[in-house]
């Protein structure tokens, strides 16, 4: 695989964040926070008629982007910040860009900036990732 600093990672599209998936996720995580499944609670704290996506679920869209690019065993590290909430119904696109290439323990690694793009707002999630590049 030929990769250069500055390359864009092929984007991964989540056309609509679904509230049903948040509910399933809440059950798997044993997450008692009602902001992920009770719209009445979300309305009280200013999010209108929308539940709030779990942080890990938003992060997972960038994981899927990295898997599609370098394979399902490639991720070595992800650091993620969560400046804004992702809401049900949002259209978000996972994006990334290669910032550095290096070798460590015999592996060819790519450091990348990664983020979620949402039209009309700053990235709701942003951070960095390190992936092992395929031979």
């Amino acid at each position, binding site marked *: 695989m030929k990769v250069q600093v500055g390359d864009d990672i092929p984007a991964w599209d*989540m056309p609509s964040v679904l509230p049903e998936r948040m509910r*399933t996720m809440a059950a798997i995580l044993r997450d008692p*926070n009602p902001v992920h499944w009770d719209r009445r609670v979300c309305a009280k704290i200013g999010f209108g008629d929308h539940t709030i996506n779990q*942080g890990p679920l938003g*992060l*997972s869209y960038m994981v899927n982007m990295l*898997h599609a690019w370098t394979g399902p*065993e490639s991720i070595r590290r992800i*650091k993620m910040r969560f400046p804004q909430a992702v809401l049900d119904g949002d259209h978000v696109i996972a994006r990334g860009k290669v910032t550095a290439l290096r070798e460590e323990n015999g592996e060819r690694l790519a450091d990348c900036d990664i983020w979620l793009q949402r039209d009309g707002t700053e990235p709701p999630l942003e951070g960095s990732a390190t992936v092992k590049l395929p031979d």
Partner: protein
Amino acid sequence: MSRPLPPVEDIRALVGHRFPGGHYTIAHWENFLLTECTGSEPLPDDIAHPVALFHVPILGAGTSIGEMFALGQADSDASIGIESYDWEFFKPLREEHPYRIDAEITEADRREENGRMFDRIAFRFDLKDELGEPAARTTITWHYNRGKR
């Protein structure tokens, strides 16, 4: 109704708090549903979706999201905000393999930014595989919002 502001000494005293620790095995059904929630097809070779690195360490360490909220004396569930996750994978996580998890609170302090007060608490989890080799490490940092002061 808001709870009283916890003394900052109580928050700082959380540093070094260790969770019981324990084991966790990611079941196939669990990984299937988890992966589906992300919008991905199932991964090959019994690989668990990396997003498992959120709940597996928490539950495997013998704690829960609810207990982590309570330890920081959260005003309410909705008052928690995520600052960051730092996930390191030393090898892929796989279904039906037991992982040993140990965890502790590594940072806890009060902050005030832009007129907003919050307690910042960082939780670190270490996962080892059946051979005792490091499999992953995660640090979760949450803000326990205390409102405008």
